[in-house]
């Protein structure tokens, strides 16, 4: 029985290998399972941007881009299988959109020499390029997000959070636990009381957590949720009439899918954002012309312009720019994974460049270096307007509190370096 299986799998495997000449950027996506609501728009945006480059410019520097997709269902075992299945085809970079899978892949990509790009998720301390040679997480990470949220609350409270109660409602996984240490450090500095309220994956059941919130009456609720958990939380908050403007989600808890089911109840809900959103960018004209109207859009094509679609597109844009940089540095258009890494490390995204790409004022300009794989980490705050069904940006880019974050990142990355026996680079 096993032998017949393996024989057929072998046949299937050999036929699946694509041509080697193109730039291969696998998309470990998830379009099924409890997190599909987040995974689908992101994967569509990611794929569509590369389709646009292929159709409009003939790829990057004349090389076509291939984006083989592999379904992970946000599951670490399937993530490993996808990684092993795609890495042999000359993969240049991975973007798994899952903190759990990222933790798994960090040692693997470091051994295999393939870059891992985790914008706004993954292991925060990977921002320290001295330890994490192959991992990049600019422009912002979870600890930046936590700090930006607290800074926003400081602004609202005249610079002091003394005596305030803040609850963190989080997905009980590596993803949700990431901000805890930062929030604890910040509570020492600003004097607020922090309550941690975990929600077990997938987070469809949150009655008891919201009962606790109702009982404790925290002044603010910070929220680290994903997938189906987001909609449920927003709905529950509306049910207990929690003041929505005091409920702030991370950037992964701030898409249209998360607030629409709660209807008017979601009005005023805030979330962080690390880039602009909506269709008011010139890139959408090209996208419409070359991709959507040509019938080449990924998925059902109904996600264009949504928050997570924009994020997938943003990730693809950064990867494409890094590939361009790598081609420039290597002097060849057919780059390999090691050259791709150099491209990531030397990448500089300026305001002018983003305008050229048709995304003016979309994200923050940043420059990476050997030490800094984390970017500036600033973020915006957006607020949901339920009557217009639209996210409105209510602040400019807020910079995180690096005074607190830098020592934390240093500490965590050095602990990893010690555990994994890595000696620091860039000296």
């Amino acid at each position: 029985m096993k032998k017949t299986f393996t024989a057929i799998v072998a046949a299937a495997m050999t036929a699946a290998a694509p041509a080697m000449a193109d730039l291969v950027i696998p998309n470990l996506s998830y379009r099924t399972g409890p997190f599909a609501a987040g995974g689908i728009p992101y994967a569509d945006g990611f794929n569509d941007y590369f389709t646009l480059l292929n159709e409009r410019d003939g790829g990057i520097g004349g090389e076509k881009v291939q984006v083989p997709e592999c379904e992970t269902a946000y599951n670490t075992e399937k993530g490993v299988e996808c990684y092993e299945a795609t890495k042999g085809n000359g993969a240049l970079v991975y973007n798994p959109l899952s903190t759990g899978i990222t933790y798994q892949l960090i040692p693997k990509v470091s051994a295999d020499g393939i870059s891992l790009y985790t914008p706004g998720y993954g292991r925060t301390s990977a921002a320290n390029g001295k330890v994490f040679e192959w991992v990049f997480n600019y422009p912002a990470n979870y600890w930046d997000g936590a700090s930006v949220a607290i800074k926003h609350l400081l602004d609202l409270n005249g610079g002091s959070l003394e005596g305030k109660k803040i609850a963190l409602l989080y997905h009980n996984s590596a993803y949700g636990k990431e901000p805890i240490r930062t929030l604890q450090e910040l509570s020492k500095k600003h004097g607020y009381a922090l309550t941690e309220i975990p929600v077990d994956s997938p987070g469809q059941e949150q009655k008891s957590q919201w009962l606790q919130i109702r009982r404790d009456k925290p002044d603010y609720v910070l929220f680290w949720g994903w997938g189906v958990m987001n909609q449920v939380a927003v709905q529950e908050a509306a049910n207990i009439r929690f003041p929505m403007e005091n409920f702030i989600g991370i950037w992964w808890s701030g898409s249209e899918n998360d607030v629409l089911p709660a209807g008017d109840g979601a009005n005023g809900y805030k979330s962080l954002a690390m880039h602009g959103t909506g269709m008011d960018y010139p890139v959408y004209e090209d996208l419409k012309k070359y991709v959507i109207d040509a019938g080449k859009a990924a998925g059902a094509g109904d996600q264009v312009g949504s928050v997570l679609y924009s994020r997938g597109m943003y990730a693809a844009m950064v990867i494409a720019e890094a590939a361009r940089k790598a081609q420039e540095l290597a002097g060849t258009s057919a780059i390999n994974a090691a050259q791709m890494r150099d491209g990531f490390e030397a990448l500089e995204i300026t305001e002018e460049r983003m305008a050229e790409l048709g995304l003016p004022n979309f994200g923050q300009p940043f420059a990476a270096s050997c030490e800094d794989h984390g970017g500036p980490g600033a973020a915006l705050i957006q607020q949901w307007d339920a009557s217009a069904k639209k996210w409105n940006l209510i602040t400019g880019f807020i910079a995180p509190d690096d005074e607190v974050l830098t020592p934390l990142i240093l500490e965590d990355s050095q602990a990893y370096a010690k555990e994994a026996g890595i000696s620091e680079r860039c000296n």
Partner: protein
Amino acid sequence: MFYREAGDFKTSYREDSQTFPIKFDRYRYYAVLAVAFGIIPFVINDYWANAVFVPFLIYSIAAIGLNILTGYAGQVSLGTGGFMAVGAYACYKLMTAFPDISIFIHVILAGGITAGVGVLFGLPSLRIKGFYLAVATLAAQFFLVWLFNKVPWFYNYSASGQITAPDRTVLGYFVTGAQTTATAKYLFCLVMLTLVAVVARNLTRGTVGRKWMAIRDMDIAAEIIGVNPLTTKLTAFMVSSFFIGIAGALFFAVYLGAAEVGEAFGIQKSFLILFMVIIGGLGSIFGSFAGAAFLVLLPVFLKNLLVGQLGWPTDLAAHIELMIVGGLIVVFLIAEPHGLAQLWRLAKEKLRLWPFPH
């Protein structure tokens, strides 16, 4: 013709009671071992190791463990995921606390610790039976996952609650961490599986196994003929948890490399392994292998066929895959309630008579 007892003369008690009394079976067993140890390690690559063989080997260990408890001793357990988590976290704590000791010893010790925890959670089985016991073990599952989430000591106070396996070696070869070769991973798991399977097979053929089966078939009758339910049930829990702990340690350290208790060892894992045992066949070591192979290889095969071969969209393929696997499980259980092992048993009966069926 080839598969028969006749002509194979046993001249000692030892030969008479060997594991595979039929010559053909014996040679087949040696052939499987020869292929597994002598050929596959030389041709295996990263994909085959990580997507197919290593998960198959590890799930087989877990399925053997659960089969001893549920299939042989008749104690239904839904706590397998929790016990695997005990193995994984025990292994992690040992690996980080004693970095110089061989990982082989750590994995065995992790199994031992899990055996202790298993006995503790097996105590209620002396009073409650059947579905009620399943609920008690379900409590173990949730309690253990909650514990490893809640107490930072278990994950060495890491910021995210993830445990990551450091690089460790056996005889100078890396078997955990990123530098591990496909061959080393595969061989380490294979050696463990072979040990576990041989021990399990022989336990179930001896006094211990007969006591388990007596308790399973009718506990009151077993008690009357002198089987002590206390020791019998607790040894079943102990041996089963020992194997499941080994599987958990390997699953975390060798296969995943990093794990998070809720995701890797949740209730889904308990059900998955229970399905393996039920589909493979309760009370059969071969059934454990067959069930693990069915549920590990079939999804990978379908994915490669539908996406790689036919070029279907990944989401459609993933949904169809769930439906096919689910449908096949239903069909199997209707057509052959005793699992794949029963098909194998029937095949052997037919083979004995072939080519003259009358």
